[in-house]
C-alpha cells in the first residue's frame, strides 16, 4: 500500500511516499530557514505563505523521488491536528485537493502521533507497550504507547518545551536559528559543570516537565556575566544542555522503572541532541531497558512519519472525508471523538 504523507506543522514543508507503513520511498523536506532566520524564530504568517508557494512542488518531488504517480497512491495522509494553524491549514487543504482530484481516501493524523511512529519507522523491532519521550520545540511528552492509536500521556511540559528552551537560549547567546543544533555543537567544547543551574521538577513526584525557570536562570546568568558572556558561551551552552538532559533522562528513567516498562523510544527534534542520545543510552542500558531513537533525519518534522502511521489506519479502513478540519492542537489518540464532535458541529 502506497501512502502520500503531507506535513506542514511549522516551518518545514514536507511530503513523503511510504510503502506498507515502513518502507520510505521518498522523504522531501523544504525548510524555511532563509525566511525566519532574521527574526530568530518562526513567523506563522510567513511560514504559511511559503507553504502555499511550495506545497505542490514538494509533493511533486516526493512522487518523482519515489518513482510513482498520483494514480499509484492508495491514500493521502496529512497532519491536521497539531502545529501553527495557518501552516496546518495549507497542508490539509493540499491533501484534500489531491484526494479530491484522484478520488483516493484521505486520512487525518495527529502530528505527535507521527513523531511517536518515527521511532518505529527507524527501528521496526520496537514493541508495544513502550514509553515514548517526545521532545521537540512545540511539545515535551512522556507517552505510554500501548499500540498504534492507543496512547496515554504520562507526563508533559507545564510551560516551555525543551526544544523551545534550546531555541530561546540560543537566541539569547546570539547563536542563530534553529538553536538546538547550535547549542549541541557549542556545548561539546564547554564545561557542563561550570555554572550551577536548576533541574526543574527533577526530584519532585510525577513525570511532568518545566523549562521556563531554567530559561530565566540563563537570562539572569547572562546579565550577571555581562561582557564575560562572549568568553563563556561554550560553558553556558554546556551547562544549560546538561541541565536539560539531566531532567529528561531522570524523568524518563523514573517512569520506566515505576511502570516496569522495558522499552523506551525517543523522538522529536531534541532527540537528535548528542548528549541526550549518549546519556539515555547509557542510563537505560545499565538498567536493562532497551532504547530506540528516531533516525536523525526523522527527528525533525517530516512527512514519512505521517504516511507511515496512516498506513495502519488505512489498513483498518479508518478514513477521513472532505469535512476534515485543521486544528492547532488536539488530544492525542482521540481520533474518533474528534471526528464525532466535528460531524456534530457540521450537522448543527
Amino acid at each position, binding site marked *: 500500500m502506497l501512502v502520500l504523507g503531507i506535513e506542514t506543522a511549522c516551518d518545514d514543508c514536507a511530503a513523503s511516499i511510504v510503502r506498507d507503513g515502513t518502507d520510505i520511498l521518498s522523504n522531501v523536506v523544504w525548510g524555511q530557514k532563509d525566511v525566519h532566520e532574521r527574526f530568530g524564530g518562526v513567523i506563522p*504568517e510567513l511560514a504559511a505563505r511559503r507553504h502555499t508557494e511550495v506545497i*505542490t512542488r514538494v509533493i511533486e518531488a516526493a512522487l518523482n523521488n519515489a518513482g510513482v504517480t498520483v494514480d499509484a497512491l492508495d491514500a493521502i495522509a496529512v497532519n491536521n491536528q497539531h502545529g501553527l494553524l*495557518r501552516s496546518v491549514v495549507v497542508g490539509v487543504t493540499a491533501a484534500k485537493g489531491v484526494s479530491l482530484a484522484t478520488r483516493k481516501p484521505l486520512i487525518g493524523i495527529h502530528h505527535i502521533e507521527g513523531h511517536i511512529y518515527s521511532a518505529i519507522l527507524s527501528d521496526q523491532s520496537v514493541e508495544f507497550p513502550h514509553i515514548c519521550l517526545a521532545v521537540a520545540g512545540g511539545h515535551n511528552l512522556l507517552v505510554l504507547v500501548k499500540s498504534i492509536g492507543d496512547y496515554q500521556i504520562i507526563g508533559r511540559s507545564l510551560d516551555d518545551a525543551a526544544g523551545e528552551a534550546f531555541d530561546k537560549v540560543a537566541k539569547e547567546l546570539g547563536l542563530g536559528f534553529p538553536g538546538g543544533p547550535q547549542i549541541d555543537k557549542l556545548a561539546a567544547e564547554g564545561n557542563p559543570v561550570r555554572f550551577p543551574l536548576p533541574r526543574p521538577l527533577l526530584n519532585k513526584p510525577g513525570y511532568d516537565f518545566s523549562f521556563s525557570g531554567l530559561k530565566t536562570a540563563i537570562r539572569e546568568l547572562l546579565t550577571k556575566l555581562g561582557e564575560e558572556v562572549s568568553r563563556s558561551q561554550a560553558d553556558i551552552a554546556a551547562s544549560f544542555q546538561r541541565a536539560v538532559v539531566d531532567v529528561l533522562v531522570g524523568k524518563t528513567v523514573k517512569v520506566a522503572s515505576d511502570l516496569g516498562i522495558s522499552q523506551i523510544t525517543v523522538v522529536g527534534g531534541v532527540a537528535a541532541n548528542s548528549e541526550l542520545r549518549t546519556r539515555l543510552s547509557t542510563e537505560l542500558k545499565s538498567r536493562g531497558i532497551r532504547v530506540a531513537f528516531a533516525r536523525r533525519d526523522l527527528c525533525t518534522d517530516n512527512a514519512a512519519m505521517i504516511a507511515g502511521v496512516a498506513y495502519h489506519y488505512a489498513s483498518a479502513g479508518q478514513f477521513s472525508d472532505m469535512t476534515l478540519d485543521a486544528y492547532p492542537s488536539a488530544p492525542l489518540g482521540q481520533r474518533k471523538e474528534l471526528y464525532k464532535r466535528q460531524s456534530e458541529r457540521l450537522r448543527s
Partner: protein
Amino acid sequence: MIVLSINSASQFVTCELSDDHKVIVHKRLKAQSFVSGLPRLIEDALTSAAIEPTQVSLWSAVTGPGSWTGIRVGTTLIKAIGFATSRPTVGLPLFDLVAAAFAPRTPMVDVMSLARPGLVFFGTFDTSLSPPKTLSQIRLVEESNVARVLGSSSRTIWMGSDSRPEGVSPDICEVVSSSDLPSGWLTASAVQYLESGVPHEPHVLVPEYHMPFPAEPSSQER
C-alpha cells in the same frame, strides 16, 4: 471545455462549473470553515453535474485581495487539484474581475477594499480594453488618504462592506460585493486569462496582494 472556478475572497464562497461557456452549476455558501467548506463545495458541484475531476479542463481561483484564509485555502486547493489532475490553473485577480463586471467599457475605474482597519487596497483599471488593463499596480493606501488619491476616474467601486473610506461620498462610490459577480463571470474570466497567455502551471498559483510584513497579524504561539 469544462471549467471550474472558485471565489473564496469573502465568507460567501462561490463555486462555478461551466461547460463550453454555459454555466451548469453555480453554488454559493457561507463558509463556517474554509478548510472544510470549500472542498465540499467543489465536490458537491462536481457530483451534481456528474463530472469527474479529470474531465475538468481548467481550474481557477480568485487570488485576492480578500479574506487571507479564504484566498490561501482557495488557491492551495485549486493548485493541488490542478497538479493532481495535470490540468492548467489560472489565478483570478479580484479587482480586475470586479472592475470589468461592474463598470464595463470604462476607461478609468478605481477599485478599493479594506485591507485592515485604516488601510485600503487601491487600484485603477481600464475596462474599455479586452482583456481589461490594470493602469496602476494595486497598492495600499491609508484610509484617510483615499479621497486624495481618487483620480479623475469615471467610476469608483468600494468592495466588501458599506462603510466607505472617510471623505468618499456615496455619490461617486458604488458599493459591491465580490460574491455578487454575475453568474458565469468567474469561468468566462478564467478562459479569457488562459487564452491571453498568463502562466497556468499549478505550481505558480499563489495568493496575491499580501499585507507587507510586519504590518500584519502578530505571531501566534504554537
